[in-house]
């Protein structure tokens, strides 16, 4: 008895320490990014940094606005493609497909998330960019191309998280609905889908986070022009590509400006997480003994 108590405590402390350690690491990274980025905000001016439209480090111009727009455009476009696809796919997998199809689909989608982003990027550069150029003109490097590549990359994230949340809807709901004479589709549409909505929103936000954070693939297909795009076929530079492209050369204020870019990116992702948490809490449902 005494001994099992000891090991119990030991495990508890161990878990606590590892949890604290990961929080500690995140705080160190955050602190470092902010400290390194701060001079850029101070020397260049926060407003000018955020809303300036020229990015030209050689001339001391560090306006980030076009890249914030670029990141947002690419992410939104990716979501427009990926969200309907992945929600329908996860509903199909969770409610419609039989065991065999489910057992086939799940590993396939997991494989999709295992493909390294450089492979997606290279595929985009070799296959997609020429196709877009041929059908829509321009150079082919565009929001459109980057959005398509990104949508494929975030599909597995959204699908698997919403699949789990659909599966977590208690069977009683479904049985009650079917028992009242609702059809299969009515049950999915009016009961299961609303009940799993918080989970699905989380899935979308996780996908969005991945889309904003993706770098390598976007660098290869987005054209990286630091300017405000005027159509969906304009090239853009995203916040992440900006850091990755110039990191290896940057010194002095330029170096600080890149860290400041990272701070902005961090704030954006933090906001997304806050929204996700809020939605989850607001739409949380109490069911019998537990919550969904």
């Amino acid at each position, binding site marked *: 008895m005494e001994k099992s108590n000891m090991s119990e405590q030991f495990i508890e402390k161990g878990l606590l320490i590892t949890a604290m350690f990961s929080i500690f690491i995140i705080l160190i990274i955050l602190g470092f990014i902010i400290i390194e980025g701060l001079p850029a905000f101070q020397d260049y001016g926060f407003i000018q940094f955020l809303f300036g439209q020229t990015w*030209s*480090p*050689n001339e001391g111009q560090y306006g980030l606005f076009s890249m914030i727009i670029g990141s947002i455009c690419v992410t939104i476009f990716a979501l427009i493609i990926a969200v309907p696809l992945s929600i329908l796919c996860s509903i199909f997998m969770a409610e419609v497909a039989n065991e065999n199809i489910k057992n086939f689909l799940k590993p396939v989608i997991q494989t999709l998330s295992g493909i390294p982003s450089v492979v997606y990027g290279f595929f985009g*550069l*070799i296959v997609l*960019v*020429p196709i877009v*150029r041929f059908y829509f003109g321009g*150079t*082919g*490097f565009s929001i459109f191309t980057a959005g398509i590549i990104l949508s494929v990359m975030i599909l597995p994230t959204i699908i698997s998280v919403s699949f789990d949340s659909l599966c977590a809807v208690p069977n009683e709901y479904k049985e009650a609905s079917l028992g009242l004479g609702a059809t299969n589709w009515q049950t999915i549409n009016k009961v299961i889908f609303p009940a799993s909505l918080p989970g699905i929103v989380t899935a979308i936000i996780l996908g969005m986070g991945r889309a904003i954070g993706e770098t390598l693939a976007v*660098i*290869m297909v987005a*054209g*990286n*022009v*630091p*300017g405000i795009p005027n159509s969906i076929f304009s*090239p853009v*530079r995203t916040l992440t590509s900006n850091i*990755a*492209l*110039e990191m*290896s*050369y*940057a*010194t002095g204020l330029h170096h600080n400006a890149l860290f400041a870019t990272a701070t902005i990116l961090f704030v954006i992702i933090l906001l997304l997480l806050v929204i996700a948490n809020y939605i989850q809490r607001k739409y949380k449902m109490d069911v019998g003994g537990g919550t969904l």
Partner: protein
Amino acid sequence: MKNTKKIVIVAIIIVIVAGIALLSGVGSSENIDIVGSTSVQPVAEKLVETYKQTHPDANINVQGGGSSVGIKSAQDGSADIGTSSKELKEDEKQGLTEYNIGQDGIVIAVNNENTVNDLSKDQLKDIFSGKITNWNQVGGQDGEINIITREEGSGTLDAFENIVMGKDTKIRSDAVVQSSTEAVKQSVKQDSNAIGFVSFAHMSNDVKALSIGGVSPSTDTIADGSYELQRPFLFLVKGTPSGDLKEFIDWVNSSEGQKVLNEEKIIKSTN
């Protein structure tokens, strides 16, 4: 059962700790840091790799950062060798010993289907600055010119701007930026209207090299200086090198080092 698990865990920890200790602690006595131009970097890495085959004890690190970083760190002594892919200004030369390890050509690459074979340096400047926007203005087929450039800070971009664009002209701001020579080549390979620039060392048949003012880029034309778009690869050392550093630089200048440089298509100037 429980015991074996513990032993495995302890063993793993020991291996990790020992690994870290081995990697970080030992052998920090005589090392050489090479810092600077990102264009020189792969060549320097190749040199070091080959050098280590005959000098297994040598501890040489190669880092990028750009030519200006190379010059600065050679001057303030933070690196043993600073590398530069552009000529030094007079005031930058103070106290530095220069070793020219060879010339690298900058090739203007267009799609293989492009009918244009030759451009003058001024035409090139007008194309990249946006004054000329259609291939038919320089004797090609009708088609809007798509410019592919490199990211700010790249050694190749830096050299191209110095040689072709001059001080006052800028590359048009809506030019597509690619992050590596290979990506530039891929972009040009697929787009019949594209134009980009790559280092001669990384040239291949995927794209067509334009001749500039009638001179096509080749080992001979770069060596005798008749092909204009070229830049030196420099090793910079503060003062005069001694000891291990001298040994390495002597080796680079020896026939063995030259062999590596030739393989990397870095061309020794003949005049």
